[in-house]
């Protein structure tokens, strides 16, 4: 597990720490609190999919589900005194809803969840490592 997501992890202390914590998004997408957020509708095409594979979709349900998942993860972060998780959850929530909300295809967690939905059709793709690689190719 990414060290920032461990119970008892300290919150980031500087810019370098922030960079490290942000790299934990793919692993965060595999936390059980976010499992119900993975869209069930299939995506066809080669692995990894690009953002064009999700064109024309309505992401509001995904956004709402992700918000609920992040709220549950915030509880976990507090329960486990995980400063890294707390920061990541706070940051992802800040850019998920409200005036700073990003389009779904620009939000790392939503992208990770979309990729997880697409990975189900590809043997061995639904892992944090493969999701991370796919995020780097997302463009």
């Amino acid at each position, binding site marked *: 597990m990414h060290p920032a997501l461990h119970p008892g992890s300290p919150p980031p202390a500087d*810019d370098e720490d*922030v*960079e490290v914590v942000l*790299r934990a998004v793919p692993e965060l997408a595999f936390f059980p609190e976010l499992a119900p957020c993975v869209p069930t509708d299939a995506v066809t095409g080669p692995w990894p999919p690009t953002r*064009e594979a*999700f064109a024309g979709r309505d992401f509001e349900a995904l956004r709402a589900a992700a918000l609920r998942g992040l709220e549950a993860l915030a509880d976990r972060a507090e329960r486990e005194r995980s400063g890294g998780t707390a920061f990541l959850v*706070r940051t992802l929530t800040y850019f998920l809803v409200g005036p700073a909300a*990003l389009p779904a*295809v*620009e939000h790392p967690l939503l992208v990770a969840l979309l990729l997880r939905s697409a990975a189900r059709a590809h043997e061995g793709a639904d892992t944090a490592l493969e999701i991370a690689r796919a995020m780097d190719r997302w463009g």
Partner: protein
Amino acid sequence: MLGLRFSRLVHAAIASGALVLGACQGGGKGGTDTDTDTDTGTATDNPTTDDPTGPPFPPDPTLPLPPPDPPPPDPPPVDVPPALIGVKLLDASTLQLSFTEPLAPVETVNPKRFRLSIAQAYYGQYGGQPSTTLIDPRYYNLEQYCSPNPPPPCYYEPPYDYYCYYGPSCYYQSTGPIVATSVAPLDGDPTSLVIGLGVPIQPFLCNTLEAFEDNPNLRMVLHLHYAAGGLSELQDLGGLAVPSLGDVWVKYDGNFYSYQGAAFSTLDPFLPIPCQLFDVPDDGPDIPDIPESDL
């Protein structure tokens, strides 16, 4: 590219104060614009009279009583207090203040009597009440920082540098508070003085103000505030004091302050500080293009 774009947004949000690293960050550190960080010798020598917030109450019983009020003087000669008529940037770290008449020596004036704000006025065209918000300039005074050893902007380990090289890891971060650190006369011009700033004004701040120039509903300016009072205040050669200008902001510990009413109503005279100092080709922050729709 997704990771790098998001990283830049996160660092910008942290720099602006919208995001904090720890849940309780800054809660016990105290403000940086308190009376302890930029004290001058004068303030230390005579802190009670040089405090913009006024003398202590109750008065110190060990001090001699003040003399009784003098009888009403003869009608004073015709005179008016000196007035501030302009503020401009001489350079990124120096403000020039111009007055209607020559000033008395300013060496003893505490720079903490001055504070800058980003004053943002809403004119109420959308049906709401006109209002003004004062914001500490630190949130807009961002400078570009490029990490000398940028971390691999990859989401996976180990990084494949040939694939995940996204360019230099640069982003904007706050310079911290912009406090006045010195007050001095301007050589050759007894009607002006100069104020030194602890950190220079950044082009990012001026670019932000410029972005609002064409907005009919909002106006955003850089403005100076001044608190009169006490012994070592700004005076003319006849001893008349320069009146306060939006002094609530000087005495206020916070970094955001809003009030209802006509735009900029507490700023009289209203003297926005031009940011023409950075009249250079735009090289503003590299904000990634975000599609208007999700796709």
